[in-house]
């Protein structure tokens, strides 16, 4: 009797896991990609709040930071952390403009291929449109709540830093609402967006230090 319940329990658990997430079919992938690309094309600006969780296996709690993100097409991005500290970074051409609680600095990323790649990932993941990136193999999944694209790096050097990069998209408007970067150690960084405002006027002046 006890075994019967255990079996039943396992069946319920495994079927509920299956119900949660399945791989997309080829045609689903195509229509999903089209939708994301179409959305990215009409997205001129994004303003959104975000919460970031850094998960390390040995910690009792994830390290939580939060702030605001602003994007302006084609490639201006500002991440502004406001809690528990003030720190902002602007991605502008081949430079990072950093304001670390009042200490301003500039980092040239033109020479570092790896850094450039990581930054490109951050910029593109905001838009969601990075399916044509030759450096990654992309896998697609769906659930009742979201569509998911998992990017696995082909380049060994990048793979030393990132095991996979996951983007979760809203089913209705094909906007990215969660970014997760999984490290080879399985520790990860998760960024969850909320209160997103699309296509409002964003002044260029906010992208200067």
């Amino acid at each position, binding site marked *: 009797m006890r075994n019967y319940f255990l079996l039943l329990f396992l069946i319920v658990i495994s079927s509920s896991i299956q119900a949660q997430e399945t791989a997309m079919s080829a045609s689903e992938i195509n229509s999903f990609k089209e939708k994301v690309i179409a959305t990215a094309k009409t997205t001129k600006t994004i303003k959104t709040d975000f919460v970031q969780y850094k998960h*390390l296996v040995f910690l009792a709690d994830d390290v*939580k930071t939060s702030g605001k993100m602003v994007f302006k097409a084609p490639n201006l991005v500002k991440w502004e952390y406001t809690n528990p500290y003030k720190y902002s970074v602007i991605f502008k051409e081949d430079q990072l403009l950093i304001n670390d609680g009042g200490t301003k600095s500039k980092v040239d990323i033109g020479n570092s291929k790896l850094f450039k790649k990581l930054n490109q990932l951050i910029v593109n993941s905001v838009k969601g449109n990075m399916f044509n990136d030759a450096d990654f193999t992309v896998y697609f999944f769906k659930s009742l709540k979201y569509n998911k694209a998992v990017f696995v790096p082909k380049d060994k050097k990048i793979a030393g830093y990132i095991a996979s990069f996951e983007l979760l998209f809203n089913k209705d408007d094909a906007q990215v609402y969660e970014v997760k970067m999984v490290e080879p150690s399985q520790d990860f960084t998760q960024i969850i967006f909320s209160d997103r405002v699309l296509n409002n006027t964003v002044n260029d002046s906010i992208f200067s230090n």
Partner: protein
Amino acid sequence: MIRFLAISFLSIFGLASCSLKTTEGLRQVHFNKVEVENPYFSNSEIDYVYKAKIEVYGKNFGGILILKKIGPENHRVVFTTEFGSKLFDFEFEGDTFTKHFIAEDLDKKFIVNILKDDFKLLVNESAEVLAVYESKNERIYKTQSDERFNFYFLEDRSEKLKKIINTTKTKEKLEIDFISSEDNIADIIAIKHNNIKLTIDLEKFKKE
């Protein structure tokens, strides 16, 4: 005259380099304390998380420093960027040092050695006392660390650890200052090197 000046200059220089600034003018006293303790990373139930600002030869960069006691003698020390990417992940167990991860650009022997020594001293919980000195409102405990010495400065009344200075026989090499408002929690930590232009400032994450 020139010779006289040269001799006096040399002798002053020679004398100065023989005595250690750390204990200058201090009175050595008898002691009954066998070990001196650093309590700031000793609670295995606490995730110690700090915003870090590093200045090295005029260049600034920042990140998040995470320290955790993960065993009776084990500490994990992880440094990430503000975005969460790991820059290094070290483990200290007594004298055993494990490099779980380090970003390629930082993986140079002299950088790793500096980081290893700094953070080993920071998380080390207790050390055997060699001598004790007294100042107006502090007791200073001298301990051995390989070829060098560490001086632990404890405030008289509160017995709070305020500062650690790492020295050779004649020179101060490294200073760690602690500001603590709560028991056994360091809110602000400043690590400063004297022989290289490197400072690490740490500010503990505020509770939500």
